[in-house]
């Protein structure tokens, strides 16, 4: 976690902000935080006002202030970046939420409408949606299997986001809706729908994709979410192998590799079947993993996991990038015959993406990718059932999930208030 800005750093950085009109950063942030204004407030010494502005737009202000990939959002379009360096926008709103949160001034909500909405899933999209619904006076029940917070709570490694930071957000939010602990299942889904005027699916992606490679079920081969969740909830009892191989290529694989290293692995190798240029990761994440000593082997494909009782190694094959491109526009890797080699490992982590974990959504229309289909008002193919977050977008980001939640809430409100 990069250290937070000091008061003086925050002021100097605020003074660099050009206070652009109709600023591009506001458009680039999915939650449309009024960035130049909140920075002007820091500059004038009105940090509390600044925090209120950030909170109004982003229900997970502290979480995003800590781990939002600003370089692909607000910061990527910062006008100041055309002169010298872009403003450290995320660091600044983390500063605002850290120093400006006031216990005296709570958001004031309107009187209850009497209508009820169920939000299934208490991750970023669910919390964003529930908070926005509360702003209209709905009684909102958030059904959450675990503690609220979703992936940021359970899987994002604590060296990047700790529980205290997340709880700054969830605590503030908790008074605006009811959290109902426990999983929604095929049986309870109908009940939940029947007892609410609308239901929102915000269940994210809980299921790890598999590779379909021999030996994937051997002990010591972990699906990445399982690994990260255990590493976060019980880092002390978690046994880490001396040598760890991570199969992946996305941000999640970098988190897993860096976590393994931090938990004591001597040698962590991340294997990716394409080259560095094709890697879809946030620069900051790759840098962090490398800084922690993670080795990255590009153009490497796993062909089998070795070992009978426990995993002992990964049989790999080198690849080259072909001329043909896949749906993502990246060249398809082609295996090189006779290039097999073995990476010895006591632990293997498979991080090749996630899918929806729910066997009770059978009737709902899905896209080819497996994610749920919604219309421009976030409505699924089932009446009065909406969906937001990763469950419609695939692996996304926190800020985008919060934004989905917000927008869907207003669509729901308009729908429900149009009724006679």
């Amino acid at each position, binding site marked *: 976690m990069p250290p937070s800005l000091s008061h003086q750093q925050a002021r100097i950085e605020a003074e660099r902000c050009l206070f652009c009109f109709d600023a591009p950063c506001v458009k680039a942030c999915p939650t449309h935080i009024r960035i130049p204004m909140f920075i002007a407030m820091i500059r*004038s010494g009105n940090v509390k006002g600044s925090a209120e502005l950030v909170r*109004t737009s982003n229900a997970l202000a502290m979480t995003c202030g800590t781990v939002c990939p600003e370089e692909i959002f607000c910061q990527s379009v910062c006008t100041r970046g055309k002169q010298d360096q872009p403003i450290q926008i995320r660091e600044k709103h983390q500063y605002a939420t850290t120093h400006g949160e006031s216990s005296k001034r709570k958001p004031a909500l309107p009187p209850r409408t009497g209508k009820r909405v169920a939000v299934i899933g208490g991750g970023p999209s669910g919390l964003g949606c529930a908070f926005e619904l509360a702003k209209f006076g709905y009684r909102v029940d958030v059904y959450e299997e675990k503690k609220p917070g979703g992936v940021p709570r359970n899987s994002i490694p604590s060296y990047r986001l700790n529980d205290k930071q997340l709880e700054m957000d969830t605590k503030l939010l908790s008074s605006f809706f009811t959290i109902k602990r426990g999983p929604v299942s095929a049986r309870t889904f109908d009940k939940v729908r029947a007892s609410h005027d609308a239901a929102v699916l915000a269940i994210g992606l809980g299921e790890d994709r598999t590779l379909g490679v021999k030996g994937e079920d051997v002990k010591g081969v972990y699906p990445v979410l399982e690994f990260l969740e255990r590493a976060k909830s019980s880092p002390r009892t978690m046994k880490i192998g001396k040598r760890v191989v991570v199969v992946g290529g996305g941000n999640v694989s970098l988190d897993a590799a860096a976590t393994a290293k931090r938990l004591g692995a001597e040698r962590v190798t991340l294997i990716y079947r394409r080259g560095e240029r094709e890697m879809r990761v946030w620069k900051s994440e790759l840098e962090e993993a490398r800084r922690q000593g993670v080795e990255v082997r590009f153009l490497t494909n796993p062909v089998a996991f070795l070992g009978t009782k426990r995993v002992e190694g990964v049989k790999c094959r080198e690849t080259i990038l072909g001329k043909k491109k896949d749906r993502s526009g990246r060249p398809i890797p082609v295996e090189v015959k006779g290039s097999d080699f073995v990476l010895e490992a006591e632990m293997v982590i498979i991080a090749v993406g996630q899918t929806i974990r729910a066997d009770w959504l059978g009737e709902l229309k899905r896209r080819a990718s497996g994610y749920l289909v919604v219309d421009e008002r976030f409505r699924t193919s089932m009446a009065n059932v909406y969906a937001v977050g990763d469950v419609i977008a695939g692996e996304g980001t926190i800020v985008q999930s919060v934004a989905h939640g917000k927008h869907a809430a207003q669509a729901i409100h308009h729908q429900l208030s149009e009724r006679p």
Partner: protein
Amino acid sequence: MRMEYKNFKEIPIYPKRDLSYDFLGLHWENPFILAAAPSTDDLDMVRRAFKAGWSGAILKTTSIEGTRVDLCYPMMSTFDHDGRRLFGMGNIDLISEHHIDVVERNVRTLKQEFPEKVVGASIMAGRKDDWQRLVERLENAGVDLIECSFSCPQGNIGEDPGKMLAQSLSATELTARWVKEAARRVPVSIKITPHVTDIVEVARAVKRSGCDALTASNSIQALMGIDIRTFTPYPSLGGKSTYSGMTGPAIKPITLRTIAEIARNVDIPILGTGGASTWSDAVEFMSVGAGVVQFCTAVMHHGFRIIDDLTSGMGHYLEEMEFRSPREIVGKALPHIGSHDDLPRRTIRSKIDRRLCIGCDQCVVACRDGGHMAIDARPDRIPVVNDDRCVGCGLCQHVCPVDNCIRMEEIAIQ
């Protein structure tokens, strides 16, 4: 995957604090109003400002139909300092090109659309009749407040070109009397200039005239800079230039002193103007005696949107200070201002916090060549104060780039 609902609108959730209070017999939604300037010269601009949350506006100075307003362009220039634009802003603008017929119409429209806002108008004339006609017509149009420009630095409509009305005590008192005589319903404020030998005398003259308030003060006459290759000062109009009225952050300390000096000596309500950009500047203006604060350059630079920070910042400040209303700030700093003779004589020394020092050694050179040669440089770059040489002048503290690194501490006298 970016997806947005097309009818989405951000909903404010934090309750706005009530900043309203009474001053000059008028009700102000908050202490922030627009000064007479380009921002108040157009109906649509004032409309937008009111919608954004400004509590009032002084419409740009108007005159009787037929008055010649001979503008020239460009009229703006800037005093940039250390890479920062508009630290001071210069203008060679004149009064509005809109004569009273347009302004009375604007007043009427604004009062109709925004009855809760304070709509003031600024006027300037030469003859008694004209001053009084202007007042009458504005009162009939429903204006809430009349401000008289006695301090336009770019010429004057009168007998003594180049000199401002407020630079003559007798002319000030006489003209102010004419205006007050004509005003039957609304308060009148005289906008003065700090360019006088004794501001208190001017304030007394206004008080004697019976006028209700002072607007203190206007821009500072300045030569904004000179192109050192062509020797033409800024702004350059085909190789010629003239003195500008300087406004903006650079003149704030001058205005603070002007307001304080009036408030300490004359019992008269003051509208503050000249160098305020933030809510905390407004607090400072009010603490030396201003009842409301006018903004011009800050708005010309960043737009009406700055009102969001002004009201939010003021709200949080009042809460922190446990003040019930902005009124409570007015005059709070005055008891702390006295003459040099009244100041306590203490023995103080500079103290450098070793943990905060970043080793730039700027304090060393400042004290060596501009103080008392009391700070010694060290190989580790953390300087050490020599208590025998230090007199506690405080220069080092102000050149230090680190917050709170150097402090002045009282020491026991041996």
